[in-house]
């Protein structure tokens, strides 16, 4: 479905995850973060950039993997993106909901 955000139209699924990563830009990320009540800081963006790099390399993401990435530990990951950090950060990053759960 279509979603109007940061002055453009992007494709999202029913849970609000972007379905076309090429449509993402930092303004959209900032707006998506606001919807989750998060004010983005440089530290937030470092994590988002890491997630996007992994996504481009087809590496499936999990909380465990992020904790071992050296980019951020799990405690800080929770502090940056409270409650469900992997889902929230994936949504902001414009990448699909993590599919680690079967």
């Amino acid at each position, binding site marked *: 479905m279509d979603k109007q955000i940061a002055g453009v139209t992007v494709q999202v699924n029913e849970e609000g995850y972007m379905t076309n990563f090429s449509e993402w830009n930092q303004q959209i990320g900032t707006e998506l973060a606001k919807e989750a009540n998060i004010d983005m800081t440089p530290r937030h963006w470092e994590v988002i950039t890491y997630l996007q790099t992994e996504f481009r390399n087809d590496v*499936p993401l*999990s*909380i*465990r*993997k992020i904790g*071992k990435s050296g980019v951020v530990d*799990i*405690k800080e*990951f*929770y502090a940056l993106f*409270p*409650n*469900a950090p992997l*889902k929230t950060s994936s949504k902001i990053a414009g990448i699909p909901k993590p*599919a*680690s*759960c*079967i």
Partner: protein
Amino acid sequence: MANHLRHHLEADLWEIDIIDERTEHHYQPGYLFLPFDIYTPEDIIKPIKDFIPRGVNLINDSIDRVMPAENYVQMVNGDRLRYDLLIVATGAKIAPEEIEGMKGEAWQKSVFDFYTFDGALALRNKLREWEGGKLVVHITEMPIKCPVAPLEFAFLADSYFKDKKMRDKVEITYVTPMSGAFTKPKATAALEHLLDEKHIKIESDFAIERVDNEQKMIVDYGGREIPFDLLVTVPTNKGDEVMARSGMGDDLNYVPTNKATLQSKNWENVFVIGDATNIAASKAGSVAHFEAEILTENILHYIKGEPMKDEFDGHANCFIETGGGKALLIDFNYTHEPVEGTFPFPGIGPLRLLKESRMNHMGKLAFRWVYWNMLLKGVHIPFVSSNMSEAGKHYD
């Protein structure tokens, strides 16, 4: 696999060995029933040698490591077993030591697992004398073997305490790292409805950091605390350590595998089946069964130098015990979520998908017989194909 391949490969050309360090084979789905005194240990354990087909050797010994680049298996006793083709079926195991405090002083006193025979038996003894309180059923992290087993445990616990006339003394909470009871929307809705009906509280998005043995609670990375009197947890599941020692596993010791052909991504004469793979299919016994039929064909193609079939679709078929002599059935694959419908005959059943019924429960109990007498022997289950059928299923 040995059964299938012995049938297809000429005896004078191919020697087939099975290496297993255990002498007993466990019917792992039975662990779920052991704590509730539904099955006895004898129901779920049989000697492995009873299931070795004629023309196949059983080597009852431990592997030190596999040397995939050199095509041999190094045994702990010093033997080297050369192979032309290797099938890895080393499975997945629990690793409670991954979480701080999980295997602490309360382990098997008030913190239990039921994914091992010892754990399920210790829990049975605990439940026999437990007087009630807060029961927390918990999943540490995904993926796990049989993702529906913890839900079934919660449902069966509800039923068990009702039968013991003490349901009012037990508060059951279901704690999951996922955002709902299951990952796929339709099954989640159906299962959450059942949890609600049985007065089982659900706590979702809980990523456990530690078990506090002193204060008897689990704590997540966000600081959420859930108190328990009895914690039944599914610890982190990992592939076998032998895959780590062999340099063949990923960060959870699962072997990177082509999800459609089941060939190892790194060594062309290594194939992987069941929980040992890293593929995004359910880690359930039914998956291994469906994989076996396709893997057999692919191995035969490989031997003849023919292209393999990119065929495995992630098919899984799971009964979900819901207590009170009823069960649900789900049938799904990589791309199709579980939905309502009839199985295996479209429109007829007799089994009903995603709906509770007594017939489904009979199916689950009958499955133990099917396992020992058909699955282990490589006999095809009539009317159930390796690839999932969309017929009889109610997709939108």
